[in-house]
């Protein structure tokens, strides 16, 4: 590219000059040479920065899209509980046992834990209560050595933590007057290395070094159990100097999807369920906010225009076991217009359809209209419509309807049972028992739930106003005016929150009135971001400390980090494409009626955005995803070329394979619930029944014979049971071109856990 002639001339000029000057170039020439190199280098770095940005965008989009899917899963559970009393004769207890377990009186007695035997061969810490510094030190050493704490001590620790937390108020008030500085940390997400690094750099929790940990201790990372145990241990040891806020991942339904449940089950095969039960109780008992010197408010997510700290102080926080088990009545208020998945960056002030050109080009209205008729998830009448224009204070609904699975769009709903909207008898999912209890006043109950969800799930936005957070599916987007108002109302000067990953580990917004602090470095990928923590002294001026945990001792260059992160992001993105292959192809073919296999770049970008709804810079990403034909049009099939399913199952139709691939995480979760004895096997009947339920809920038209064929083909041993690990393996995507990287990643991500009971 570029103009050939002028470059050649420049080259020639240069050559001549060099010949003349031989070994001593003139200062002018030196300067010219330096400028050239600098120019070139800066351009190179700028392009690298560009790649880093969109890599970041990819990770974030996929992450938040995943959180929306989570909502769908929980609505599926609700659906199952409502409509199917029998799941192979095991009743709703099967599902509800994990979701809303009946209070087992046995579980509340601490003597039974002391009855658990610890084998002689166990070399890990043996805790004694009340805890002392030697106990916490023992835990630190043990975890550094990759040891696992025995289930007996986990249960005792959790039980003690539960007792302690019961005495705490919803909002903890802390003062700096007795201490030097308070350290505030953000999301850790099971990253033990980051926690240890913080302790190393900043000191262990103590009277001189008090801490606030702002939620999201678990999920995603591999050491969530260890992180939680350490935090709770220090809480027990120093209840006055250690403060924990609840995050949106301190939620047993989130844990089902994002790895904590799995980690516990794998590390504690015998006592896993009891441990999870106690974690569930502990999580719901965590305080939701901390206030320092009456001036600095710390919450995990953010606030909404409805947030009222006095009201928040008064509610019974433990009743909100999960943000995802919403009060029945809220479902009625879900308006179909909230299906419109606004891009994370597009947070319009009044919540009405954003008028920017990007939305128009996406044609969101038409597909949504058709979905409205097909999917039975929400009411048609807009009488109770909480429209998305939610700048007014009373009507912002805190829970948005889940994003309709795009598989619904071309096909009509098969006969899926409608969700019954019985307002009279209200199921109470928050209490420990499953009985239907008449609530005192549903709206009040909802308000309480909403207060907590807003605190745990909201994100700040640059524009004024408060709108539902459709991106995440819960909480709100709150603008600078909302922040200002709340701070004034309560005499506060600063809001510290977490919940969002930031490249530098922290970020300020709303003119410095809001700080986001995030403590899991390399969250998306090695080198993707720094972690950080805040230190706050009596003058209440925050100081930021950053770090980055690195697995290799050698310092990675920006180039290497960007390459690694980019590779990982692209792989994830390609899997998304693969998971929606048939829809994408249908979209492309609309523009390619003559089956040439090509469409224009614009058309390609348009199809991708309308199907995937990730709001990514598709044109910029194009070279990495798909090939161009000589006439500069896109060969749209080339983006699927280097990927394929793990195992080919001949009886499986491509459509079914794709659906299974897309929902494999959800399916895995369901299997894990059904598989009570953790054998890794479920019966064919259970599989069939579950799949029918799930597909009915999704509205996917898969006929029974296809399911039966599938079940039979997966039953490799022909013994009537399915090894679902093998089954799920089939629906992983293999990237044919980079098997070496793949194997490396698998090794990293698929670590086998050793057992702690």
């Amino acid at each position, binding site marked *: 590219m570029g103009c050939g002639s002028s470059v050649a001339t420049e080259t020639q000029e*240069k*050559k001549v000059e060099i010949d003349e000057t031989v070994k001593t170039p003139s200062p002018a020439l030196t300067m010219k040479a330096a400028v050239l*190199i600098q*120019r*070139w280098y*800066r351009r190179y770095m700028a392009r690298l920065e560009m790649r880093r940005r*969109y890599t970041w965008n990819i990770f974030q989009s996929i992450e938040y899209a995943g959180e929306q899917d989570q909502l769908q899963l929980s609505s599926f559970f609700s659906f199952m509980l409502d409509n199917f009393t029998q799941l192979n004769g095991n009743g709703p207890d099967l599902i509800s046992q994990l979701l809303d377990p009946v209070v087992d009186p046995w579980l509340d007695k601490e003597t039974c834990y002391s009855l658990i035997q610890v084998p002689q061969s166990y070399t890990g810490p043996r805790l004694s209560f009340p805890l002392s510094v030697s106990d916490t030190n023992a835990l630190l050493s043990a975890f550094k050595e990759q040891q696992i704490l025995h289930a007996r001590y986990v249960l005792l620790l959790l039980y003690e933590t539960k007792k302690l937390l019961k005495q705490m108020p919803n909002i903890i008030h802390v003062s700096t007057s007795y201490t030097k500085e308070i350290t505030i940390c953000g999301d850790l997400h099971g990253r033990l290395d980051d926690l240890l690094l913080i302790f190393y750099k900043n000191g262990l929790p103590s009277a001189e070094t008090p801490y606030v940990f702002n939620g999201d201790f678990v999920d995603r990372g591999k050491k969530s159990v260890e992180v939680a145990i350490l935090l709770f241990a220090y809480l027990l040891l120093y209840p006055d100097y250690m403060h924990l806020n609840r995050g949106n991942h301190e939620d047993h339904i989130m844990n089902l999807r994002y790895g904590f449940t799995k980690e516990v089950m794998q590390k504690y095969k015998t006592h896993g369920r009891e441990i999870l039960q106690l974690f569930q109780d502990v999580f719901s008992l965590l305080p939701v906010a901390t206030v320092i010197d009456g001036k600095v408010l710390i919450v995990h997510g953010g606030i909404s225009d409805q947030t009222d700290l006095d009201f928040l102080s008064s509610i019974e926080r433990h009743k909100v076991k999960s943000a995802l088990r919403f009060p029945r009545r809220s479902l009625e208020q879900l308006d179909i217009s909230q299906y419109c998945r606004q*891009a994370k960056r597009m947070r319009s002030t009044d919540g009405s359809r954003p008028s920017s050109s*990007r939305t128009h080009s996406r044609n969101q209205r038409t597909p949504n209209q058709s979905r409205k008729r097909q999917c039975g998830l929400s009411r048609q009448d807009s009488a109770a419509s909480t429209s998305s224009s939610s700048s007014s204070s009373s009507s912002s609904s805190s829970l948005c309807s889940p994003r309709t699975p795009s598989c619904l769009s071309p096909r009509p709903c098969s006969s899926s049972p409608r969700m019954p909207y019985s307002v009279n008898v209200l199921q109470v999912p928050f209490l420990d028992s499953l009985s239907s209890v008449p609530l005192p006043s549903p709206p009040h109950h909802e308000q309480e739930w909403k207060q907590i969800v807003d605190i745990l799930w909201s994100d700040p936005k640059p524009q004024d106003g408060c709108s539902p957070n459709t991106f995440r599916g819960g909480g709100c987007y709150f603008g600078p005016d909302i922040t200002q108002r709340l701070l004034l109302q309560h005499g506060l000067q600063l809001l510290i929150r977490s919940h969002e990953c930031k490249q530098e580990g922290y970020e300020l917004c709303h003119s410095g009135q809001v700080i986001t602090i995030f403590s899991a470095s390399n969250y998306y990928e090695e080198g993707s971001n720094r972690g950080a923590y805040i230190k706050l002294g009596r003058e209440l001026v925050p100081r930021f400390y950053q770090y980055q945990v690195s697995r290799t001792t050698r310092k990675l260059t*920006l180039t290497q980090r960007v390459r690694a992160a980019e590779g990982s992001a692209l792989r994830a993105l390609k899997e998304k494409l693969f998971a929606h292959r048939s829809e994408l192809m249908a979209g492309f073919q609309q523009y390619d009626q003559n089956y040439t296999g090509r469409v224009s770049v614009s058309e390609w970008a348009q199809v991708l955005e309308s199907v995937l709804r990730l709001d990514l810079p598709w044109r910029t990403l194009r070279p990495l995803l798909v090939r161009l034909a000589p006439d500069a049009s896109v060969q749209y099939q080339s983006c699927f070329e280097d990927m394929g399913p793990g195992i080919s199952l001949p009886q499986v139709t491509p459509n079914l394979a794709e659906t299974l691939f897309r929902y494999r995480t959800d399916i895995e979760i369901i299997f894990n619930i059904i598989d009570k004895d953790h054998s890794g096997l479920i019966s064919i009947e259970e599989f069939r029944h579950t799949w029918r339920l799930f597909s009915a809920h999704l509205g996917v038209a898969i006929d029974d014979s296809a399911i039966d064929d599938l079940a039979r083909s997966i039953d490799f041993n022909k013994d009537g049971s399915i090894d679902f690990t093998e089954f799920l393996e089939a629906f992983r995507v293999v990237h044919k071109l980079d098997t070496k990287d793949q194997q490396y990643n698998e090794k990293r991500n698929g670590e086998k856990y050793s057992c702690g009971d």
Partner: protein
Amino acid sequence: MAESSHNDLSEIHKKIKAAFEVFDYQANNTVDVREIDTIIYSLGCFPTQADIHCFIGQVEEDHTGYIHLDRFLPAMSKVLLENKFPPISEDVLLQAFEVLDKENKGYLEPEELTKYMTQEGEPFSQEEMDEMLTAHTDPEKNCIFCKDFIDKLNLEPDK
């Protein structure tokens, strides 16, 4: 050629918008002025720092620190159509290196390179210098080999 020039313009507009979009965090068609150089580079141009400052002067909105697409688009289109900041070919880069490598060693010492980059031309910041050295210094010989330097800088997906 005449018809395709109209298509070219619309294609150029699309390219510019796509690059702009990546940095438009508030989705209101503005970007922070500090991102402009990245955007210009990513569109295939090789401006000097002086070129960039001049360009910003033309398109910035009265010291708000933001640049709006409405002004960026025509200015950038002109740049692309007129090829105002043409790329530097590899040969030229090689020769530039050779100019600095007075003794024709085929490599530069880190101190030499640092001196040139931070004192001559449009000097690097400390951060830029550190990154260049980390990325390009051969760990064993502790010097920057000319050929490696140029090869690495050429490794990027284009087209």
